[in-house]
């Protein structure tokens, strides 16, 4: 599991059964200073993340356990929206205003 920043999204209309309507986002893994540390990955999202959000990603077999369908070929899922990450007493990255339209439910999944 690691921290990442959402840098884009992927739309794939024709996809394997079971992936249903899961949202696909592109995530750049981050280190403790907020710098990118690895190649970006495509991850499913169950918390309603948006562009620029810092998120908590679960990878590997456990990634699919966060989805509605639990045995699907998924190796990364965004399982948390990171509001604050304290490192050496400083916040990385700095808190940002929530850009989400009011009323949009972010955690209505299993």
């Amino acid at each position, binding site marked *: *599991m*690691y*921290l990442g920043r959402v840098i884009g999204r992927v739309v794939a209309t024709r996809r394997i059964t079971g992936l249903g309507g899961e949202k696909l986002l592109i995530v750049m*893994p*981050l*280190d*403790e200073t907020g710098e990118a*540390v*690895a190649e970006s990955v495509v991850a499913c999202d*169950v*918390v*309603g993340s948006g562009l620029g959000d810092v998120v*908590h990603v*679960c*990878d*590997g*077999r*456990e*990634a*699919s*356990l*966060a989805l509605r369908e*639990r045995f699907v070929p998924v190796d990364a*899922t965004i*399982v*948390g*929206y*990171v*509001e*604050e*990450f*304290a*490192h*050496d007493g400083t916040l*990385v990255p700095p808190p940002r205003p929530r850009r989400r339209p009011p009323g949009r439910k*972010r*955690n209505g*999944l*299993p």
Partner: protein
Amino acid sequence: MKIGLVVGTVVTPVQHPAYDGQRLLAVRPLDPDGTPAQDRMFVAVDRVDAGVGDRVLLMAEGSSVRALVGESAPIRCAVVGVIDEIALEGRTVYGG
């Protein structure tokens, strides 16, 4: 399991329900001698009340962690111990 250094705490107000009530730590893997390992930073659930600066045991493999947190939880990494001492080839390199 890996040896790690707790470098931060992670607050996620919106999260998968499996993480409700769990504390999240950011852990940087270390080589046994204490130098940072060539490995990325992990986010792990805390099972031993570890804090920033602690040297810890990091379990970073899903099936073992699911034995702790339940079979259906999307959780892959857990901090399962706070390290008191590390000895390498008979020499104490940490604590002791």
